[in-house]
């Protein structure tokens, strides 16, 4: 390729009118070491483009962290979307709130009943106190039962999760067998 052609290509290059093929020619030309004086100023530009096109994700990163993170993620989402930890936390906080409320109520009722009994000191107060205590205890027991129900449900959820995870493990082994290169355990990857 002669110098005039290159100059003509360069002119069109800066106008954005060259094709990919022509740009390849320019890159190839500037890969040479012997560039005429007047064209040398363009050399770094094309050298830069060539060098950058060959950059890759760093080897170590590619094998270890990236691969593992992606595959971990891919494995996770292919089985389930709910985060078990989050769900458990939700139930726990609901139960805690219920308990606090119950304890508060019991104290309130107890206090109220005690004060009434002290001030009025009348006959029906024992019956009233009895009824109120009964009511409060009923509330506690009902509340506790609902709480227990939730716990039971949590257990079934956990069982189901275990099953799903086992299926997932099996699936991973299978794909590992089919495509051992890609699915290799990153920790053994050197």
């Amino acid at each position, binding site marked *: 390729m002669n110098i005039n052609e290159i100059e003509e290509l360069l002119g069109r290059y*800066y106008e954005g009118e060259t094709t990919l093929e022509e740009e390849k020619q320019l890159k190839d030309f500037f890969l040479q*070491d012997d560039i005429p004086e007047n064209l040398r*100023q363009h050399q770094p530009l094309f050298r830069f483009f060539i060098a950058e096109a060959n950059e890759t994700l760093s080897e170590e990163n590619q094998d270890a962290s990236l691969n593992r993170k992606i595959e971990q993620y891919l494995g996770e989402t292919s089985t389930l979307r709910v985060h078990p930890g989050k769900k458990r936390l939700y139930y726990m906080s609901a139960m805690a709130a219920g308990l606090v409320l119950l304890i508060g109520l019991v104290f309130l009722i107890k206090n109220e009943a005690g004060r009434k009994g002290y001030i009025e000191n009348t006959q029906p107060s024992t019956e009233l106190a009895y009824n109120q205590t009964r009511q409060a205890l009923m509330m506690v027991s009902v509340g506790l039962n609902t709480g227990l129900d939730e716990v039971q449900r949590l257990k079934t959820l956990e069982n189901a999760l275990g099953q799903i995870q086992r299926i997932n493990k099996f699936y991973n082994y299978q794909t590992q067998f089919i495509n051992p290169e890609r699915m290799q355990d990153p920790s053994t990857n050197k």
Partner: protein
Amino acid sequence: MNLQDFNTKVYPLKDKIFRFARRMLEQSEEAEDLVQEVFIRMWKNREKLDEYRSLEALAMVTTKNLCLDKLKARKFPVESWNDQRQFIESIAEESRPDLSDFVSGVKQAMRTLPEHSRMIVHLRDIEGCEFEEIADVLGMQENAVRVALSRARKQIRGILINNKNYEYQRN
């Protein structure tokens, strides 16, 4: 699309995504994280991936959007524009700058370009994309891409050639 398809069709785009992300973010670590993010987004979308005309274009659009979001969220630019100018000018003052000094000068010159121009030059001159592909990724008309590319190339040339002692000496 299952895991195997994903591995053969999407995974090999990792280097291209990485280069593009690093061009925009100018930081390798952030770019590596971004590659992961792009893959995760694509995986979440795996049911619909077969409907796209080009997975590569989709990956590049995703990368572009994530990069622009990241850049917008940044409070301060990594390096100020002036630093890069000074770097380029300092090359000429070195006693015996060689070709590789000027090559890194091009990198700095590219950093001074506005985001859009930088993406265009990267996709065209480094990745060798057709104008049609670039227009697809950036959501522009092909002609507009051409005009912007020409302007950006001239801008780089302007920055590089304004140095008086641009001619490097060879060993």
